[in-house]
């Protein structure tokens, strides 16, 4: 930990120097020329004379202005997707930013939404589609949200009950009763995507119910469900309980897809900007730490207890390390079964919006770009990441590649064409 901190501080100083050079000397060719002429250390000294480099470094490293609020509550659902949000409490990432945060467990996504809208929590764990839906007032009163960080990428799976061991393709799932954690979830959209790609209409040929993740395993055991597309640890827990098996990891649908998010009301971000920034730094820091697979065992131990996930450490470890039994007698090794990458690409938001429209959750015209830019604060996140010396993508919108399906490439510049490429859909437009 200490080493890591020292490392990221050095990286930060380096990054600040680079950007000042860039700002003063212009583009890269000029900079190289200048450095060649005078040598790197002379250049740094010369720069320091015309620009307060130390002050700039301090600014980027500084906690920003004074914190408006130190005692904070952050809501979470007990799933491994919330790893950075949860672990930041016991592992001291919030404290490092001068914040005293209590993470508060909520029973379901509707409750998480209401706790946040009602200001009982200051910031919250959400599913990546939720801040978009709430901002648009879909399935909720309209409250503007900001989502500065994706929590995890990948990290979901389709789990089926043991009696369906023979199922090879989604086509054989007609008539199944499925569960997803929430309407406005990647789980729902990915499950629908997989079914529809194999010709199964998710609105007519299967039943998809909303069940809070913690209750899915009990329902699968009771035979109320044939399967679910759920966040972990509940896929792995079904294997652990010997009642289900992992049919497909979500990374085999869309490698690197967003899953859960860290979000707050725009009102909170504006009322307490320094606190909000400090929170974002804590989350980015924790996410970075969780990204490093060497730390995953330690994290599993920190978040498994009753206060947080309330799951056997063994199960949490199987999820986070990606070395796990799949319930069919194989041990699989998939290091990126779940991964942690905070950058909130606008293109992710746009894909989610196309699916919300595809399945009739929103009707009429959607200003994809505008909503994405409003809610997924990619620019701010990039600045914060760079100020912390972390590598951040230069593009806020990219083309995403799917591993499954007819249209494998999603071009965020052409959402409507993408939408029309699907034959099974509710939206007529």
């Amino acid at each position, binding site marked *: 930990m200490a080493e890591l901190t020292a490392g990221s501080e050095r990286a930060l100083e380096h990054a600040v120097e680079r950007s000042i050079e860039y700002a003063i000397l212009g583009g890269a060719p000029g900079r190289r020329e200048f450095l060649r002429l005078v040598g790197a250390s002379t250049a740094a000294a010369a720069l320091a004379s015309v620009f307060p480099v130390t002050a700039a470094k301090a600014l980027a490293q500084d906690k920003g202005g004074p914190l408006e609020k130190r005692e904070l509550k952050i809501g979470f659902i007990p799933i491994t997707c919330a790893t950075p949000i949860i672990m930041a409490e016991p592992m001291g990432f919030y404290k490092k930013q001068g914040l005293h945060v*209590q993470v*508060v*467990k909520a*029973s379901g996504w509707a409750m998480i939404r209401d706790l946040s809208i009602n*200001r009982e929590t200051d910031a919250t764990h959400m599913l990546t589609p939720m801040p978009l839906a709430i901002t648009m007032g879909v399935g909720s009163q309209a409250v503007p949200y900001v989502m500065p960080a994706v929590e995890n990428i990948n990290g979901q799976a389709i789990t089926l009950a043991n009696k369906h061991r023979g199922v090879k393709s989604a086509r054989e799932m007609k008539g199944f009763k499925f569960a997803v954690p929430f309407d406005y979830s990647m789980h729902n959209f990915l499950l629908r995507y997989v079914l529809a790609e194999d010709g199964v209409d998710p609105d007519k040929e299967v039943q998809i119910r909303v069940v809070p993740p913690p209750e899915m395993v*009990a329902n699968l055991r009771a035979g109320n469900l044939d399967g679910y597309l759920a966040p972990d640890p509940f896929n792995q827990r079904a294997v652990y309980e*010997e009642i289900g098996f992992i049919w497909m990891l979500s990374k085999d649908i869309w490698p690197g897809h967003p899953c859960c998010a860290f979000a707050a009301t725009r009102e909170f971000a504006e009322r307490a900007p320094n606190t909000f920034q400090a929170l974002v730094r804590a989350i980015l820091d924790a996410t970075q730490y969780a990204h490093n697979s060497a730390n995953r065992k330690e994290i599993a131990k920190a978040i498994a207890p009753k206060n947080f996930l*309330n*799951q056997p450490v063994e199960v949490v470890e199987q999820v986070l390390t990606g070395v796990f039994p799949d319930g069919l007698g194989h041990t699989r090794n998939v290091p990126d079964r779940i991964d942690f990458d905070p950058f909130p690409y606008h293109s992710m938001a746009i894909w989610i919006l196309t699916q919300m429209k595809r399945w009739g959750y929103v009707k009429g015209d959607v200003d994809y770009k505008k909503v994405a830019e409003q809610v997924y604060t990619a620019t701010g996140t990039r600045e914060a990441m760079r100020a912390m010396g972390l590598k951040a993508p230069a593009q806020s919108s990219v083309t995403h590649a799917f591993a499954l399906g007819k249209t494998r490439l999603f071009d965020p510049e052409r959402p409507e064409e993408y939408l029309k490429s699907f034959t099974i859909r509710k939206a007529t437009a």
Partner: protein
Amino acid sequence: MSRDRRRVILYSMLFLVAFLAVWQLVAEPAGASGKARGLPGPLAVGRTAVEMIANPFYDNGPNDKGIGLQLLASLGRLAMGYVAASLAAILLGVTLGLSPILYRAVNPYIQILKPISPLAWMPLFLYTIKDSGQAAVLVIFMSSLWPTLANTAFGVASIKRDYLNVAAILQLSWWRRLVTVILPAAAPAIVAGLRISIGSAWVAIVAAEMLIGGTGIGYFVWNEWNNLALTSVIFAIVAIGFIGVLLDAGLGRLSRRLAYSE
């Protein structure tokens, strides 16, 4: 009499032993891996109970507290919602009981509201009052309002006219009539209502807390369910039952003290 009593106790004990024996037989023992399969038996639940009773008031932060603290949190919510509902129900009940016309005018609405599960109000309360704790208390309020209201109205309406006539002749003030004649006369009916109310309030609180999370015995059950820790869930069920009996016994005692014969 005392021989009967001994036999009652003997039979009770026999039922308990028989129940525990059958339970132990249907329960599945822990497998070779040590993981429990299916229903845990009474011995496993007993071990969990001993652990929990040994340390009922630990506090490991907002999401992990001892069973004692959880029960106290639930009882606190119960007290708030129940006391408020009882006061409101008695006042309204007396008013309706004294005025047959008003009673008949309001009764259809009471009949419509009464069968609504108190939990159905939860989303509405959450949306409007914007506080999950208060919403839970309001759920308790709704669940303990109707039995007391109906019983009070009925009790007051069936007070002997003679009592009220005497009070009128003595020209007692409205307040004195209420305190010295109406409430004592209707007391047995009111307490019977209060007794039903506390039962339904205790039933509702567990479900309400499973929804809102945070603290309380309902949250405890939900949190243990997440982990499929059935021994804890069964122990919590037993604890909920015991508290329910205690609450009911308290009001039962009150009702015996207030009983009178005409």
